[in-house]
């Protein structure tokens, strides 16, 4: 101790055993509060997406089975059905966009057809009006890259402002003329054919006319939108194929086209009605997003309740802990008064100690939280059958700061109130054993 400032006394007090217990309680509280807020944040975000924005939650795939096109068209007559199209439009059209090639990472974007009610929120520019126009995300990342664990990674410094690209165009090539390797063809024959196609194909130039908010849509930051017609034009009708050979080495091949239907309902709440009608009409269908709001609510509410209860317990513990600590320190407080420390100096010594402990706990708690949240994130995504990395659920850092500020204020308030109470006592009562 050098004797420069009364806070040296606070630092010396830090090593008391009871502070360790106190720290553990605080760290636990902080973690619980973080996680609770994370879950609440997630729930709000998610519900918002499901109810208002997400097309997938309102989309059903109706299997063709033995139904005819005419029968399938009947589905449009069901109330609340706003779209009844080939399930081809659920497919994506990936493009290796040379425009965005960089030294170490290739350009790569994906096109979706702009269906009605996509829930797209235009941020800059306008929506598509002709077939040669496209939309890109406002935060545009025209690449795809994965880390060693197969998680998608985004290099933040490579995110482009979509706004800056309005008016520019992107070249795409139709998949339709894309040669398909037939079973009797050798690979070299096919390669030749393919290369010839590459040379002779004609590019289609698409102009960027607007950007949309990709954060509300659970979409990747490289997902762009084109018109339905253009999508139909560039996307191959072939969905896949199989080949089978007999023992005599006679092989046959079979190509599948998109035959099912994609049904979009106007609002999530009407989904059950439409499902019911489809059942009545003897269609077999499956939802695009296997999402059960009841399970989801339970999934969210359990941690929320646990978090709330633990928070209340912890805050009570903090209160009692400070009270007990100061009761044990009443003689120390009395002593400082006899030594001529004024009330503010005494309060400062103890609140400094308290603040140091809380700040340290905050940092430790934050580190532990970051570890836990990765796990929780996984748990939520897997349970809700969401794509793993498609949504950001970490609470904003500013909320974390607010939380710790609140905690500091609260405990300092308790501390100050208690010390003032003791300082109002007769010093001899504090120092003696009469309290």
């Amino acid at each position, binding site marked *: 101790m050098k*004797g420069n400032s009364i806070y040296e006394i606070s630092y010396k007090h830090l090593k008391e055993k009871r502070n360790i217990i106190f720290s553990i309680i605080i760290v636990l509280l902080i973690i619980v509060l973080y996680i609770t807020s994370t879950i609440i944040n997630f729930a709000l975000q998610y519900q918002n997406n499901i109810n208002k924005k997400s097309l997938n939650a309102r989309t059903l795939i109706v299997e063709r089975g033995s139904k005819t096109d005419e029968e399938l068209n009947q589905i449009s007559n069901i109330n609340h059905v706003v779209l009844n199209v080939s399930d081809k439009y659920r497919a994506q059209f990936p493009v290796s966009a040379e425009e965005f090639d960089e030294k170490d990472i290739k350009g790569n974007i994906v096109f979706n057809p702009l269906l009605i009610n996509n829930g797209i929120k235009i941020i800059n520019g306008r929506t598509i009006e002709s077939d040669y126009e496209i939309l890109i995300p406002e935060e545009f990342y025209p690449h795809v890259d994965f880390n060693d664990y197969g998680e998608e990674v985004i290099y933040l410094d490579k995110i482009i402002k979509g706004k800056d690209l309005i008016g520019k165009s992107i070249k795409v090539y139709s998949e339709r003329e894309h040669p398909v390797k037939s079973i009797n063809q050798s690979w070299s024959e096919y390669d030749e054919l393919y290369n010839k196609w590459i040379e002779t194909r004609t590019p289609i130039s698409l102009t960027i006319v607007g950007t949309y908010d990709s954060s509300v849509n659970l979409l990747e930051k490289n997902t762009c939108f084109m018109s339905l017609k253009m999508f139909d034009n560039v996307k191959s009708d072939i969905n896949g194929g199989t080949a089978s050979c007999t023992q005599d080495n006679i092989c046959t091949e079979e190509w599948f086209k998109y035959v099912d239907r994609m049904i979009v309902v106007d609002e999530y709440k009407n989904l059950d009605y439409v499902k019911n009608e489809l059942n009545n009409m003897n269609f077999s269908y499956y939802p695009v997003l296997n999402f059960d709001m009841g399970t989801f609510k339970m999934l969210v509410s359990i941690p929320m309740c646990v978090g709330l209860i633990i928070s209340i317990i912890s805050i009570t513990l903090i209160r009692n802990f400070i009270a007990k600590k100061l009761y044990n320190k009443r003689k120390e407080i009395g002593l400082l008064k*006899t030594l001529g420390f004024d009330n503010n100096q005494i309060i400062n010594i103890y609140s400094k100690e308290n603040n140091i402990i809380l700040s340290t706990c905050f940092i430790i708690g934050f580190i532990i939280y970051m570890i836990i949240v990765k796990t929780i994130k996984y748990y939520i995504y897997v349970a809700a059958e969401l794509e793993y990395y498609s949504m950001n659920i970490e609470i904003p850092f500013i909320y974390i700061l607010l939380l710790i500020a609140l905690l500091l204020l609260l405990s300092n308030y308790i501390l100050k109130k208690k010390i003032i109470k003791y300082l109002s006592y007769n010093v001899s009562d504090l120092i003696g054993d009469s309290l």
Partner: protein
Amino acid sequence: MDQNKIGMFISEKRKELNITQEELAELMNVSKNAVSKWERGLNLPDASLMKNLCKILNISLNEFFNGEENNLELSELTKIFEKKNEKIIAVDHVTYKFEPGKLYAIMGHSGSGKSTLLNILGTLDKQTTGEYKINGKETIKLNDNELNYIRRKNVGFIFQNYLLDPNLRSYENVMLPMFVNNEIKKDERKTRALKLLEYVNLENRFNHYPKELSGGEQQRVAIARSLANNPQLIIADEPTGNLDEKNEKIIFEIFRKLANDGKLVIVVSHSDNIVKYADVVLYMKNGRLGVYNEG
């Protein structure tokens, strides 16, 4: 008081006695130059010369350093505690004057009002009626800040249970009161604490924590702490209540030394041994203060 003021004070007192610098130098057996240096505040007389100087100038050591008579005056001091309609007269019309440089022992049965009186003397409590003056100032008229200031600068407390901070080493405990005294320079605080520990013969224990010290040693650290801001008044409430006779003797000897050095020391003790060390033995009974033995 700083060196300048002490110089002026010496010069004043010399002139009052109508002696010249040369005559004083002769009486003191020092050079005239030395006396001139003292009076101009350039130098202080050695400790060995100080006593002689006080004798010649007819002042007390305490006056020498503080420029004024430093004493505590009680008149008709009464403290009444009220508890559930019951009135306890803890201190009952006490009139007395404590003088510096003396060791006072206060004896008496438990509950006779000794602690209450000490608390009032140390400004930790206020009397119900009557007057208490420190150096001529009425304490009842002082506000919290002024009382804090008095406790900081003028009073050193010593308690039966030592009240050392267990997280601080001996010298750090001694430094504690200096944190609120800007008159002691920051870089001098540790050195001063070590010197005070030397005063109570604990220089080799300076780096120990209280739990590593015996009760007697802890009380000596507490005494060193009470001296941190060089107070004139030392108040000790049953300082040896938890100690054996051997340690008690060491503590009492320190109090004697403090009184010899000009401090006003008031010790409440149940031990008869204090009588051997005290200048004045007082006793309390039912809140009344009496003189048992003086001089």
